[in-house]
């Protein structure tokens, strides 16, 4: 199961990379967001997916599932969400100001 998830992470990362390399704002944001999801999947796989029952004292089993990766991705998802929201707003503002959503046209600066 872990192997399958890691392969899925690889596929997601390559899709994300492809999108990030394109020129439109929205595609870059989506790409970054997909990479974020891939990384979250990788994080939750890092402790092993399901190695026992829930890590509660009352449970009478030999093995427990590692709870730390779950705590980690919870934080990571929230941060990812906030940053994506901010970037979307910024992209919209940039689109309004420049009248374009093409990264290529934002190169260089008029000061030089």
């Amino acid at each position, binding site marked *: 199961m872990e192997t399958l998830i890691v392969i899925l992470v690889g596929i997601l990362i390559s899709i994300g990379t492809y999108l990030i390399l394109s020129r439109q704002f929205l595609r870059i944001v989506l790409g970054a967001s997909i990479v*974020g999801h891939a990384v979250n999947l990788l994080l939750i796989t890092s402790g092993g997916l399901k190695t026992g029952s829930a890590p509660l004292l009352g449970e009478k089993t030999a093995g427990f599932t590692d709870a730390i990766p779950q705590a980690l991705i919870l934080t990571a998802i929230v*941060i990812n969400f906030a940053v994506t929201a901010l970037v979307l707003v910024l992209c919209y503002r940039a689109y309004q100001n420049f009248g374009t959503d093409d990264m290529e046209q934002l190169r260089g600066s008029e000061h030089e």
Partner: protein
Amino acid sequence: MNNLLITPVVIPLLTGMVLIIFQRNIQLQRVLSLIALIVTSVISVLLMNQIKNDGIQTLQLGGWEAPFGISFVGDMFSALLLLATSIVSIGCLIYAFSSIGRKQEKLYFYPLFLFLITGVNGSFLTGDLFNLYVFFEVFLVASYVLITMGGDKRQLQESLKYIFTNIISSAFFLIGVAYLYSMTGTLNLAHLSIRISEVGQDGLITTVAFLFLIVFALKAGLLLFFWLPGSYSVPPTAIAGIFAALLTKVGIYAMIRMFTLIFYHEPQITHLFIGILAAVTMVLGGIGAIGYWDLRKILTYNVVISVGFIMAGLVSMTPAGMTGSIYYLIHDMLIKALVFLIGGTVIHIAGTSDLKQISGLIRHHPRLGWMFFIAALSMVGIPPLSGFLGKVFITKGTFESGYFWLGGIGLLASLFILYSMIKIFMNAFWGETILSEEEEKGTTKGLLLPIALLTVGSLTLGFGAEGIAGHVAQAAEELLNPSLYISAVFD
């Protein structure tokens, strides 16, 4: 257990949250944020004394003992950086009072500024890798908003690049965390250090070390500084000053921490590679600094040079090199804020950042001119000033450990700095005065005080070096002996 350790994080955070409520009362916002930063600096002095007397201080949050909970660890290195951060942020904050403008002040400038400081202080104090990521995100998100403050077209353009770069490097950070967790099963820095020294730093762990190197190099601007000159030259002066002084330095701090505490077993691979990156960074930064005629561009390339130079001390892994890196890091925080504020003031007066159109400002602004001259000399490392000791120790360290080429390039980089700073001084301050006092685009009213404050800070660091020599030596010793850090966390 020392509850004082959490205060440099909590005070700016809570003050920032309270200030959001008082959005319209600008006077209150100014006073409260200044008080919060002054209190933080007093606390960092207290912490420094405690660490001096009783060794490394720790705090296990919520009473969860390491390695199960999140530990806060304050060693001398963190405490020195905390103090430098507080001084720099007070300087930039006072500068912002009279330069940032009503509109920005109402648009939550002060809360965001304090959140930035929260993130930076937290990164210096945390003893947990994932918590480090969280604090990185805290100050990055604050910086995303600060960099766009004003909504000018160039700011939007540069901020998009800045944000996308940082999102990708944060993803790399998490990938590194995931790999390290799956290999070692812990995220506590001290525990990681123990586990890795037990199993040995094999090829896989070295690869992960390189992953972290890429992440922090992107944040610090070590070789991967392509985003830096653009994004540091667009925000308002006070914000550019705090960015130049703090943001790259957090990356440097993280790199020094990771490569002295955790990944120190294979220096012939990792540290040599950092050395090569540092050398290339210094040369490229130097070329940028001499090549441009834009005041802000020259200053941002100087930020890049100093990143390379500080890393050279880490590469040597000798007491002298480490001492040098710490001295230079503190010096660089003060001096970069100082020159960015002076540069911003010059642009404010002249209305342009093109050096060819600025001339002879020293006639009407003698104090500004001479303070810039002092800053320039101490950046180059003229003896009694603050840059000197760092340069001597770093060069000594690199020579002692046999990296003659690295030390040589470091000295060459000093010449680049000298040339670029004197170019600014000769063009902007000397020469024929072309602007009469009436023609100037802005006044220096209220702007000279913070600049003078930072100049005094830098002079004190230079002339009073004897006073903190013991502290810096202790910090270097703690960095070179990971066992001190580990035993402090697990006792």
